[in-house]
């Protein structure tokens, strides 16, 4: 497109319009270049902000994971409470068994007492037997003296006293036999006494051992009480842990809410960026329309000038 020199005749041409169009085309090119740069920058902003959004989302997810971790700790802590409850239950069961054992032992102790009393009665009876046997020996001795006296009197009586002497001899034999029998009974009673003493000593020892066992049972019961108390103490620790976790979760939730708000703000910014970006894309279509229209002006002017 040639630009004619200014003259009176040329002032009537449309060449100045061509000049204006060409200038506008130059401005349009510069504008488009600027638009390319702007879109590039906007693309970079969009990309960078996308990264911010992504990182923010990652952080939010991490916080969410944290919250999950706290929940897990709480769950584990609650399991600990369950273990504590199991301990309580087991201790309670064992204490029940110990109580039963103690009760049974006390019954055994009562039986030992009864046995002791029976032995005492038995001892008294033995003593009575001994006394009776002493009297029997004494009677046997008197009978022996009597039979001796009777023998002497029978000898004095002579022939008439022979039968009586025989009877007196048999009485003497009987009394000797009684004494022998009493001696045997005494020996047996002595053995019984000796066995009884041993049995008594054993019962005493067993009784003593039983009493010691009862003391141990009481001590065991007390130890289980201490275990229960200790488990109860653990419960308060668990409650404290749960409290700390709840507190942390609450703070974490506040932090998450903050990030949620931040994410909403980020999303809004991203929406604006996308809207600006979208507007930029419609501008490119407008530039095309402008360009398509402006490109037609020079040929039209040429056509006009050609007449």
């Amino acid at each position, binding site marked *: 497109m040639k630009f004619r020199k200014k003259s009176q005749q040329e002032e009537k041409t449309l060449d100045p319009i061509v000049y204006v169009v060409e200038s506008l085309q130059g401005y349009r090119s510069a504008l488009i270049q600027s638009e*390319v740069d702007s879109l*590039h920058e906007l693309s970079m902003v969009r990309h960078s902000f996308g990264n911010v959004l992504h990182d923010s989302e990652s952080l939010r997810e991490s916080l969410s994971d944290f919250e999950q971790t706290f929940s897990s700790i709480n769950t584990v802590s609650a399991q600990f409470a369950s273990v504590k409850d199991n301990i309580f239950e087991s201790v309670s069961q064992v204490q029940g068994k110990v109580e039963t054992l103690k009760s049974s032992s006390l019954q055994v102790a009562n039986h030992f007492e009864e046995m002791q009393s029976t032995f005492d009665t038995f001892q008294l009876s033995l003593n009575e037997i001994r006394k009776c046997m002493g009297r029997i020996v004494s009677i046997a001795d008197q009978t022996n003296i009597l039979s001796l006296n009777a023998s002497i009197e029978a000898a004095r009586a002579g022939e008439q006293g022979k039968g009586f002497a025989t009877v007196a001899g048999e009485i003497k034999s009987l009394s000797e036999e009684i004494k022998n029998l009493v001696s045997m009974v005494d020996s047996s009673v002595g053995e019984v006494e000796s066995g009884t003493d041993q049995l008594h000593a054993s019962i005493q020892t067993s009784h003593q051992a039983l009493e010691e066992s009862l003391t141990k049972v009481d001590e065991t019961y007390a130890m289980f009480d201490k275990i229960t108390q200790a488990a109860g103490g653990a419960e308060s620790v668990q409650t404290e842990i749960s409290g700390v976790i709840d507190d942390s979760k609450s703070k974490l939730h506040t932090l998450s809410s903050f990030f949620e708000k931040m994410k909403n703000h980020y999303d809004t910014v991203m929406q604006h960026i996308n809207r600006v970006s*979208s507007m*930029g894309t419609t501008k490119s279509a407008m530039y095309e329309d402008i360009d*398509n229209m402006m490109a*037609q002006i020079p*040929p*039209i002017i040429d056509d006009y000038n050609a007449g």
Partner: protein
Amino acid sequence: MRQFFGMSPSGNLEEALHGLKDPQLIMLLSNNEQFEDHVKKLESLFPGVPSIGCIGMSYDVRVVEKGVGVIAYYDGINAVANVLEHVSVMPVKYIGRLQKDIHSIKSSGRDTVCIDFCSGNDACVLTTIYSALQRSNISLVGGTGDGGKVSANGKVYEDAVAYALIKNLNGKVKAYKENIYHQLGNYRFVASGTDKANYRLGQLNGKPAKQVYQNILHVTEEQISTQTFKNPFGKINGNDTCIISIKEVSGNSLTCFRQVNDSDVLILLELGDYRQIVRDTIQTIKNDFQRISAVFSVNCLFRYLLFTDHHYMKDYLMDMSTLGHHAGLVGYGEHYNNRFVNQSMTCVVFE
């Protein structure tokens, strides 16, 4: 209103016109060898009836590849046909024709559509035509024909756009655009180093376009021109995405089937579930219309090739026919309002 579709695989126009009576608008879809003859014969058979035409394949429930197809409207429309010439340099010189036609058809906007057949420089043509149409809220649907020729009212034009304004006297009309691709990854490019006259795309985010395309899709230079069936570019325009096909590699640049401008924001696309997308489009149209009189569509040649390759073309046409009477053109570029797109389907639905 009613839509007529007649065809002759052998290119016999009388056969294609068999049964057509009292048309109010005729659209001729002919072949390279017979186009001029068909235009002349059509005008002699229906003198004074508004008509537009171009070279291209046509279809209703089957495709006419090399013969002739005729789409006509009758019974309940007002129509006018005309042409803008010198579209490669100054279609706006003839904008007065369109303005006069818009005025004469007394459109209410929602009852009128403009259908255009263009021979080239589509983006400039659409800017020009739509600048007039949008003032009356008239939608535009159209496409690019083959051979650099179009016809209007019995005359063949080169370097021109033929248009028809159709007013539906019995209800509304609505235009649609269908995209069977969706964004691949999160790539977003600002185009630069473009040559809009030769449809060249020099750089994407400051790097050679060819290298960027190859690096992402791992294809050889030779594979690029066929890879476009799977992965064309998408030009972002607000909430809309306009598909741009790649024609060939030119040095480190990519030559496309549509002009790319500096500062255009592009994304990479990949083929979606086209059967489902078509079903969705059909459902959208059914939701918008209680009663459909006719559907006219323009399907990109690339879509035709893709659907044919995937043995889907026949099913596609059968699916579209569930809307009602459906016919259309296989184009070299599709028009939707002021947007010139590739690998797409645009259509207008008449109530």
